[in-house]
């Protein structure tokens, strides 16, 4: 008997309109746990590297974490993997909410979608009843309307839906897969792959139970986690309501996408503006499934309606368009959500286009007669719509800044801000540590692969570092305490070690389905690694310790790296845009001034990081390391291809 896992995969062949159930076996689950691990395992076994993102042979895999559906707090993440049409690498996006636990209750760990449907369809999973249903009347509908119509059609308001919007239908490489009003698998074009397959949505409702190996122990662990959850709840409250976070971002100057925070535009009083806006418009702070935190805000925005937002959604378009107005930013953000677009990449693309126009690289002939300028509210909305629908200039931008620059030519690539072709987001500017973790992230875009715990000053924890450590909030080994006091704008010491450890912590989350926020990203982590592993053991009966769990995390990471090595991913790709080395754009304490990254020191940390991972200097997992992780078959494959 398998505990926690259903040991069932739902195989969906859209080309033939067939669905069937298959099993992966306990050994695979014990080696790859769930979520991203199971996804890369399936991908390695089934998808040759030469398969194009928009090919029927590309898979779109939705997998629950091992702990989803159990009492483990905050275990609700769905990991979606595919070959990305943006980065052209194996990529994963994940989202919280309610979908993956529902999938577990329907009796599956994964849904593996292959092929391409000849007409728009959606998948309906109700326990053992599975069917592909006509989605022609849903095609062209926004993501909220789509979810409403599906629940109405199925006559079940408890159905959980993942779906794409117009952007996904049009294969925009920033297209997201959305769920509810706020949950979003946003980055690297998952929605475009789904749209290419003519799959509008996956709806699920389950009535089965999820059994665990040692329920009493799991409940006890849950209670101990919940006892520690207070400070993070307070922290989120502050984040949404008082505007402290908005101001902190301004103080750090990390507002930015194409650019660092633009000077002289009026962002100076963001704290008051944020608090005022939240005071007037905050309706509710909702939570995802089985989570004690409330990391989202539902705001009633004038002329828009209820907008669900967290983190960067507050600000992305303010910065991209240089308009210091939260209502404007949220209006653009809401438009992105409804079209099923990643607002980060989309805002970046808007700013990129304006930059090109302002520098004479684009003219009205290229822009359908539009005059592209900063400070223009209507323009942002027009560009978002054009991108979602792939109209005119929007068609060029819909492929991302990297491809757009190649298509436009005339030196446009100098104005791009991307890492491995995926547009960067704010935190990359924050300090050297987060720039580094962005560069090495397997998804090629996210500084969150590291930990915001390494950025103590700006986070406004209301707690002195020594007190923070004393109270047991510090995520990392105690002997690394000194790293907490370093200024990571200028100091490189420990970056590689902390990044590698932080990545193990985050990868473990990607396997178990416990949200990063609960287990490793924000300041007051309720589920530290040792507790995380005990939750996993109690639920699955695996009985592993932290070292063994981290080894499994590294196994998943190494397999992803090996897969992408076959696609040409090398050290040269593990970097940030060149301007980070050329200009003073990094740092979070204004009074100390900004720094530029140091090529030599950055490279030195990269060497250390690869050594810690067991990879070569060119970012390829070594044969020895692969053998040690039980990935001998991967070693043989890389050797056969002449990569090792």
């Amino acid at each position: 008997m398998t505990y926690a896992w259903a040991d069932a995969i739902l195989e969906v062949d859209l080309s033939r309109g067939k669905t069937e159930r298959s099993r992966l076996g306990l050994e695979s689950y014990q080696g790859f746990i769930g979520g991203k691990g199971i996804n890369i395992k399936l991908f390695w076994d089934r998808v040759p590297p030469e398969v194009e993102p928009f090919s029927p042979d590309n898979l779109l895999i939705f997998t629950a974490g091992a702990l989803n559906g159990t009492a483990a707090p905050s275990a609700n993440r769905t990991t979606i993997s595919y070959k990305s049409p943006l980065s052209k690498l194996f990529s994963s996006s994940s989202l919280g909410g309610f979908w993956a636990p529902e999938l577990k209750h329907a009796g599956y760990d994964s849904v593996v979608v292959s092929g391409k449907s000849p007409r728009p369809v959606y998948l309906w999973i109700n326990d053992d009843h599975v069917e592909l249903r006509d989605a022609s009347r849903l095609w062209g509908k926004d993501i909220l309307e789509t979810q409403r119509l599906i629940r109405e059609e199925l006559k079940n308001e408890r159905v959980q839906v993942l779906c794409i919007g117009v952007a996904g239908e049009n294969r925009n490489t920033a297209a997201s897969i959305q769920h509810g009003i706020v949950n979003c698998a946003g980055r690297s074009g998952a929605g475009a792959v789904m749209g290419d397959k003519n799959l509008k949505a996956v709806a699920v409702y389950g009535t089965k139970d999820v059994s665990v190996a040692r329920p009493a122990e799991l409940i006890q662990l849950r209670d101990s986690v919940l006892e520690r959850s207070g400070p993070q709840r307070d922290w989120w409250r502050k984040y949404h309501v008082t505007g402290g976070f908005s101001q902190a971002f301004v103080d750090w100057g990390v507002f930015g996408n194409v650019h660092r925070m633009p000077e002289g535009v009026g962002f100076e009083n963001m704290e008051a503006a944020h608090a005022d806006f939240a005071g007037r418009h905050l309706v509710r702070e909702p939570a995802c499934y089985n989570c004690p935190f409330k990391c989202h805000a539902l705001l009633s925005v004038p002329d828009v309606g209820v907008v669900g937002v967290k983190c960067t959604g507050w600000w992305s378009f303010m910065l991209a368009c240089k308009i210091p107005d939260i209502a404007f930013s949220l209006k653009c953000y809401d438009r992105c959500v409804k079209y099923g677009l990643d607002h980060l990449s989309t805002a970046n693309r808007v700013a990129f286009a304006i930059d090109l126009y302002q520098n004479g690289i684009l003219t009205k002939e290229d822009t359908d007669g539009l005059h592209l300028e900063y400070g223009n509210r209507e323009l942002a909305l027009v560009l978002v719509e054009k991108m979602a629908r792939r109209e005119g200039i929007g068609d060029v931008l819909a492929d991302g800044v990297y491809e757009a620059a190649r298509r436009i030519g005339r030196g446009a690539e100098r104005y791009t801000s991307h890492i491995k072709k995926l547009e960067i987001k704010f935190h990359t500017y924050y300090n050297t540590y987060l720039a580094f973790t962005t560069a090495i992230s397997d998804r090629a875009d996210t500084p969150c692969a590291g930990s915001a715990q390494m950025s103590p000053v700006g986070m406004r924890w209301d707690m002195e570092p020594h007190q923070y450590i004393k109270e047991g909030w510090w995520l990392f080994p105690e002997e690394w305490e000194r790293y907490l006091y370093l200024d990571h704008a200028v100091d490189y010491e420990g970056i590689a070690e902390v990044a590698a450890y932080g990545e193990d912590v985050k990868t473990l989350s990607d396997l178990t389905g416990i949200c990063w926020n609960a287990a490793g990203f924000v300041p007051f982590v309720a589920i530290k690694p040792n507790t995380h592993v005990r939750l996993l053991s109690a639920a699955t009966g695996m009985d592993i310790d932290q070292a063994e769990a981290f080894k499994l995390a590294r196994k998943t990471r190494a397999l992803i790296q090996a897969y992408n090595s076959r696609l040409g991913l090398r050290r040269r790709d593990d970097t940030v845009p060149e301007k980070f080395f050329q200009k003073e754009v990094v740092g979070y304490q204004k009074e100390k001034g900004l720094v530029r990254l140091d090529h030599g020191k950055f490279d030195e940390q990269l060497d250390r990081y690869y050594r810690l991972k067991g990879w070569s200097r060119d970012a390829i997992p070594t044969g020895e390391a692969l053998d040690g992780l039980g990935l001998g078959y991967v070693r043989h494959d890389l050797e056969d291809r002449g990569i090792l």
Partner: protein
Amino acid sequence: MGKTILVNADKCTGCKMCELVCSFHHAQTFKPSASRVKVKVNSREAIFTPQVCMNCEVCPPIEVCPVSAVSTDEETGVAVIDHAKCNLCRECIAACPYNAISFEAGGNEVIVCDRCGGDPECVKICFPEALVWAEAEEPSAV
């Protein structure tokens, strides 16, 4: 009247922890479909409503049950299903104004909150205090 579950929907975050603990208490496994409390979610309008037996003074399910399988507990006032009598017609489910009665397919039975014998699990887990265990002052209103 003694203590009862009071619902403050404005405080609900929609996390559904109550469903998970309720199912574990009653079915010893994690199975929200076996939960006696259910959270109705309308995220588009930001409305989350925990639905559970509100011990109404007049209980419509009692009126509609063709086999008189529904009654109210003398002490707590909550609806009680007599499974020996119940014919699974589910009229009570449709009649309850709070959607507090449901059909659990796995156990093939109609289920309703029993207040966990006076120490409700859902209340204990509810951080936002959308569910509280308190003296019932007045019969509940919608």
